[in-house]
């Protein structure tokens, strides 16, 4: 069910292919997107820890900048926690500040 991808959005704004749940958004745009869900809420991850680089790495893509909320879909609370965790990990050279 790897459906059509919407243009733009860095390949991340997926076109949803789930039937039934296409509500209001689908009407307006020709290409509707899947509603983004906060990863931490969905997976019930309470602890965003700076030591857990495996968890943090997907949120610092190639340029090593923190992935904005509008793209990752993370909720405000978790984005805030994520940010402190990433900044701490950077201090300890677990995560880069920039990519060369």
């Amino acid at each position, binding site marked *: 069910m790897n459906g059509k991808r919407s243009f733009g959005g860095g390949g991340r704004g997926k076109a949803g292919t789930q039937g039934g749940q296409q509500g209001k958004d689908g009407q307006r745009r020709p290409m509707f997107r899947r509603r983004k869900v906060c990863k931490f809420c969905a997976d019930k991850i309470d602890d965003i820890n700076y030591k857990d680089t495996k968890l943090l790495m997907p949120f610092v*893509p190639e340029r090593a900048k923190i992935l904005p909320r509008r793209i990752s879909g993370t909720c405000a609370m978790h984005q805030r926690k994520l940010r402190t965790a990433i900044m701490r990990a950077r201090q300890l050279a677990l995560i880069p500040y920039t990519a060369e």
Partner: protein
Amino acid sequence: MTRKYELVYVVSPEATDAQVADLHTQVEQIAQRLGGKIDKTDNWGRRKLAYEIGPHKEGTYVLETIDGGGELMKEIDRRLKVSDLIIRHLIVRIDEEQSVIDRTRNRRTESSRRRRIARGLPPDRQPGEGQRSDMEDDDRFDLGEVER
């Protein structure tokens, strides 16, 4: 009123194991002198640094969990700053965050139990019972392409 702190320090890769152990005892001594104690120590071993720090490309990471007061951590911070062998260190207070995490976790399990009981189910999830096992191949978070 003791607090819990986490201390991570990165030791220069040139340091021998004995020197790393020595640093640990130094920290321990300071802790004891100022009425704290080391809860646990975890040596992560040698890791590659995400960026070069001076001439170093890798370092030995050591994590210590310390019970103690702010004065103690101040002293440890000062000592680590002066030390030549240590290239980076970080002190974080963890007791408050930990209690928040525990609270949310408890609240979640309790509410899920209550809901399950209300539905006439046993309070804990049975093995083999999954809400949405079809989520496994979900591509919502295929941000994995950034792996380097």
